[in-house]
């Protein structure tokens, strides 16, 4: 079993991005943190001045979820529909950003495996094509630059404040 804390990111096929990470907690807690709005809001995408202003989860097959983040450069929303649900070990849902810069919906699969009170989390995002997947990762790089500027803004602001 992998060491807790090490994130593995791979592209096993043309259309997928797979991430694996071990968490030092039992599976049902990891499942809660992934599916309960009050917990999701505390970790997912909330960095450098970004907060989650909408976090709605209707956790059932056919139920929808919706997330909206607010940051220095405006709002960013996304959502989808749950397709499979096996508590507390597997969730499959669709994923689409409001201002989608890519074609079609992506399919997210979350798999939780518990071993000796630790949980291995594997997330797979499958896009409609390789071009789409690559575009998404590249846009991640672009948003990373924006994020760095946000951090710079904060540093400058705190510098002026002190």
């Amino acid at each position, binding site marked *: 079993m992998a060491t807790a804390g090490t994130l593995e990111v791979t592209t096993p096929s043309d259309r997928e991005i797979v991430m694996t*990470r071990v968490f030092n907690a039992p599976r049902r807690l990891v499942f*809660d943190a992934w599916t309960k709005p009050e917990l999701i809001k505390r970790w997912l995408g909330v*960095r450098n001045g970004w907060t989650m202003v909408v976090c709605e989860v209707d956790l059932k097959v056919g139920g929808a979820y919706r997330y909206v983040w607010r940051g220095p450069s405006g709002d960013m929303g996304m959502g989808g529909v749950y397709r499979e649900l096996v508590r507390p070990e597997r969730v499959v849902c669709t994923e689409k950003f409001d201002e989608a810069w890519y074609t079609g919906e992506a399919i997210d699969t979350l798999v939780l495996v518990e071993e000796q009170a630790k949980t291995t989390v594997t997330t797979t995002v499958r896009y409609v094509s390789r071009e789409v997947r690559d575009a998404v*990762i590249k846009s*991640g790089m672009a948003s990373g630059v924006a994020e760095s500027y946000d951090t710079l803004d904060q540093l400058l602001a705190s510098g002026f404040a002190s």
Partner: protein
Amino acid sequence: MTAHQLDATFAALADPTRRAILARLASGQASVMELAAPFAMSQPAISKHLKVLERAGLVSGARDAQRRPRRIEPKPLADATGWLERYREIWEGNYQRLDAVLEELKASEKKPRRKKR
């Protein structure tokens, strides 16, 4: 960098012999013979691996089949790692925050079970 180039880079890196060849070339250029020496492989087998690395743009200097020394081309490798690195950084941040949330959940679960003395 195009998707096609990235695929070629990742495919080329998927093989342990090719990674070893790149590691060797990272310390300086070498001929096919020099590259084959540490491996239990024929020169043609090594040449085959070199062709894959060349197609991916990771190695250059192959015009004159056997003699011409090969050298590593650092840019595609840097592009390929940078590509996923940003994605990884974003998720590492998410997961570190999740670690903190989970620690808190574990701690709060223990509390109610504690008996008063």
